[in-house]
């Protein structure tokens, strides 16, 4: 029972990392229909900024905020320099741009920060809690809370605010959104900035788990895609739920079935779920009007 609970708790913690990473992904997707394959690399870059500040004896919060400020600039630059000039290209082509960005960022990171891995501290270093043998790290609770908080904020913005509706309108029909007076380019800039900031937050919070290196986000990033799809790109609750599910599921399958076949089983299950819920667990499907 203790092992079971320990697996669940740890799964939730890991899952919240996937979820955090997924939220930025989903935001960009919901604004522009683009899957940003470079989301992870951008987060990695921001994490290195936090690390560099930290190594220069800045306190943790300063390092964290530094990374966020950097992300604001990075998100803005990426959108302006790489995405916007290709506005005529179709969605798949834009995805290829983000593939190119992966190469640029991982190459630049190697050139600037080198190839080593670095330890990075947790946000909360308080002693572990022990609940009847189940060990809970305060940091894990913090991450889960942050994830839920960000999810809530995004949910609120998208659902309830004018900006949110403008974002959704832009996603569905850019031209008409402009005709409604929406400054589409601002919306894009903004969503790239926010998404990059979310990536930075994810990166800094993930770093204690993965260490900081040019490769730190690769696997988390992959799982974050899966989380987004499992939960459904159509909402912000979906990806978070998807992230939690994958985190927990990975552990349970590993513990009770097989560590070696875990990947096959989890991905197989993903595909199976999609077959029955083609727009994800939280995706609403409706009868398309013809």
């Amino acid at each position: 029972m203790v092992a079971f609970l320990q697996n669940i708790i740890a799964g939730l913690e890991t899952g919240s990392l996937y979820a955090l990473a997924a939220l930025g992904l989903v935001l960009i997707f919901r604004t522009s229909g683009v899957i940003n394959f470079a989301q992870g690399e951008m987060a990695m870059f921001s994490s290195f900024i936090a690390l560099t500040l930290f190594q220069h004896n800045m306190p943790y919060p300063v390092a964290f905020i530094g990374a966020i400020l950097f992300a604001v600039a990075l998100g803005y630059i990426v959108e302006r320099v790489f995405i916007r000039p290709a506005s005529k290209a179709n969605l798949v082509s834009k995805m290829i741009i983000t593939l190119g960005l992966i190469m640029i960022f991982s190459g630049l990171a190697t050139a600037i920060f080198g190839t080593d891995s670095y330890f990075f501290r947790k946000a909360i270093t308080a002693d572990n809690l022990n609940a009847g043998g189940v060990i809970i790290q305060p940091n894990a609770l913090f991450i889960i809370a942050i994830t839920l908080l960000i999810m809530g904020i995004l949910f609120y913005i998208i659902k309830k605010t004018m900006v949110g509706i403008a974002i959704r309108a832009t996603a569905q029909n850019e031209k008409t959104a402009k005709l409604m007076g929406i400054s589409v380019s601002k919306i894009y800039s903004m969503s790239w900035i926010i998404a990059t900031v979310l990536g930075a937050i994810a990166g800094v919070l993930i770093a204690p788990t993965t260490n900081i290196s040019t490769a730190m986000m690769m696997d988390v990033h992959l799982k974050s895609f899966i989380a987004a799809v499992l939960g459904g790109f159509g909402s912000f609750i979906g990806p978070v739920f998807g992230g939690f599910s994958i985190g927990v599921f990975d552990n349970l399958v590993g513990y009770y079935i097989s560590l070696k076949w875990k990947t096959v089983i989890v991905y197989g299950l993903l595909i199976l779920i999609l077959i029955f819920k083609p727009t994800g667990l939280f995706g609403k499907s409706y009868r398309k009007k013809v």
Partner: protein
Amino acid sequence: MLNLEGVHAYYGYIHALKGVSLKVEEGSIVTLLGANGAGKTTILKVISGVLKASSGSVTFLDHDISKLAPEKVVSEGIVQAPEGRQIFPELTVIENLQVGAYTRRDKKNIKSSYQIVFDYFPILKERQDQLAGTLSGGEQQMLAIGRALMAKPKVLLLDEPSLGLAPLIVKDIFKIIQEINAQGTTVFLVEQNANQALAISDYAYVLETGKITVEGKASEIKEDPKVLQAYLGGH
């Protein structure tokens, strides 16, 4: 108030507008007639800044708007209900209307604007939480018009507003246009339904393959034999 002067426009290398000049006076209703493919929609696109004129000028209240981005044109107060409805299919009816009011500064009065739109099109009220993409064709058309009204524009550009509407509603539409106009909105109207459009208009233009060929007071145009023959059917 709105002025086009020698406007040329291209799609790729298709020359769609070949020196169009026209005027829309403040407070008037102006109708633009023309056969399929004449370039009516193109004119609206140029006014809204969706398509840039390759030469010629577009001025609004005496300043040049031909270089403005579409969203800037909207904030100038020129709003259109575009051809093909172009509603946001995965927003609900109410959210579509909300987007219409995006540029409004008087946020407090938006609620009453919903009411006005719902009064014009009661069916939209019934459907307010339905995804717009699942509305019937006519319902979408009403939504597109309603959405434009939400912006409370100075100039309203309507591209074939009666398209796909049932006869009863078509009549309403022209009444609505008159009402809006009476409340101070200038209307520039593209219509196939020439009779009814001319009936409520002050002035009219006829466009043929990218050129204005006839213009005049609506009442006169109505009697113009050329127009009669080409656009008004067997009257």
